[in-house]
């Protein structure tokens, strides 16, 4: 005979299910056993990420784990969208030991894109390059199709490694003006190759292009073509370590240049064409470089 209780509740109905939450089998008191990770964060500590990339509107995702003072391992995710050039982002874990983080670029990687990440500790909620930083505990390149992070590979400086091979299409100048390419801010290049085409107007004159490297004010290298280009002709030019040409070329005319040559921010790769005419047109500047980031210009 049923007694008491509403229908389908004890003692008339089945007993409630047993809760089966299983706590971690390993537990310790942080006061007694200090976790092996040395990065303990207080409530007002922030992990700051300083990012530098040659990409545009890239997105980075950072997944991380930390150990709370209660002995619980928790996980978190930080999405940093729309990074062009440089950016800062922060995360806090309230209080505990950072166990790991893994970062990846989630927006795909156009050819020649690189992204460098520094992981720092700060107490500034929205830091910038001038904010006080209390530690740098990891830095390295972050990739699109796999993760990098801490702990893991040894930290790298931004100029470490093989560099990123980039093929860059330069800016076509207006008619009658020479090519001038500049190394962007926070970049370090090794110029590997250079090619461009000059189409001369009908104005009669012999043009003699020169490839020059300029620091913004002063040139520090000038390598000229050893063959002339007449009016109303189209001729390719390529930079090369080579002795002067003495006969008409089958393909490009050589512009002498001590390749490979290291270049830093602000330095320019230029042509300087002797006897250039108003109707002459440089076109299709194309060059390859090995590229790294650099913090200081």
């Amino acid at each position: 005979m049923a007694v008491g209780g509403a229908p389908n509740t004890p003692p008339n109905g089945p007993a409630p299910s047993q809760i089966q939450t299983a706590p971690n089998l390993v537990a310790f008191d942080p006061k007694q056993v200090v976790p092996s990770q040395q990065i303990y964060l207080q409530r007002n500590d922030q992990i700051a990420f300083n990012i530098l990339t040659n990409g545009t509107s890239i997105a980075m995702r950072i997944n991380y784990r930390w150990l709370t003072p209660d002995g619980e391992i928790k996980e978190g995710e930080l999405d940093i969208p729309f990074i062009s050039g440089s950016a800062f982002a922060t995360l806090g874990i309230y209080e505990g030991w950072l166990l790991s983080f893994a970062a990846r670029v989630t927006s795909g990687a156009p050819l020649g894109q690189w992204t460098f990440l520094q992981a720092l500790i700060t107490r500034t909620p929205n830091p910038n390059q001038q904010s006080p930083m209390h530690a740098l505990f990891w830095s390295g390149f972050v990739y699109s199709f796999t993760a990098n992070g801490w702990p893991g590979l040894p930290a790298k400086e931004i100029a470490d490694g093989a560099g990123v091979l980039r093929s860059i299409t330069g800016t076509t100048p207006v008619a009658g003006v020479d090519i001038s390419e500049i190394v962007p801010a926070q970049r370090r290049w090794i110029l590997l190759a250079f090619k461009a085409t000059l189409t001369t107007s009908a104005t009669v004159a012999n043009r003699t292009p020169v490839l020059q490297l300029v620091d913004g004010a002063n040139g520090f290298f000038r390598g000229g073509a050893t063959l002339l280009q007449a009016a109303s002709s189209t001729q390719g030019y390529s930079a090369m370590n080579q002795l002067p040409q003495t006969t008409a070329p089958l393909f490009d005319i050589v512009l002498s240049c001590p390749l490979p040559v290291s270049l830093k921010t602000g330095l320019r790769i230029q042509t300087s064409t002797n006897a250039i005419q108003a109707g002459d047109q440089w076109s299709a500047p194309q060059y390859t470089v090995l590229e790294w980031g650099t913090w200081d210009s």
Partner: protein
Amino acid sequence: MPPAIDTITATVTAAAAGGTAAAAVAGDSLIVRSTSGRVRLLNAWIDTDALGFVQVTSPKLHDNTRGLRLRTQVHQPFPLLPFEAMQDLYPVDTLALTVGSAAGAGKIDNTMLMVYYDDLSGVQQTLIDVPTLQKRKLETVTVEYAPGAPASGSTYSGLAAINAQSDLLKRGSSYALVGYQVSGNVTGITLRGADSGNLRIPMPGWSPAGFASASWFYDLSNYFGLPLIPVFQANNSPAIFIEQISNDLLAAITASLIFVRLG
């Protein structure tokens, strides 16, 4: 041990489908207030322009990856969480609020969080529970709110004193705010004054839910077992202010606040 209800409103313009961080509106902060007592997230709602999600995370929630991530409906700011305090917040913890929307340029997505502090030093709100209301209720009176079109979709606007439309509250009496009606969808309306410690008491601006909004605070108090019915003194009427968080539509809405005079 003064308890307090508080509001955190966060806004984002032109949120991405994958999520964009929302920032607290002027006057609010995503950092939970400092207290030695318990802090509870009572509920949350969002007024958004496109299907997407709203996500509240913090290192102190279950995880800092998704935390509370809820799918949304377009311009439907109904309470998203269960009527039971199942998520505590933690003093000085910084909440990360992310909205995924993709409604486009200029589109504003607003999220309101309703927070309850067991003990907030320096703030003295008058809050009662349902049994107290039942013992002291005398009669019901409504207060009109008709501020016209709001000036902004992403800040508290439409400020109007509680006696702006009609000054009928009997001086010397206390009035319990049990619910409200709103004429059209708006992120939310709030009420603040000396009796709320100048913290905003939030109400979701979901107009189809008139049957629920009529007893919003009554139901909250009933479900949570907490004193969640705010009481205001008629003497303070000129300095009790109704405000709203609109949306990018900037529609002019009207509202009725349902008060019960207490004996």
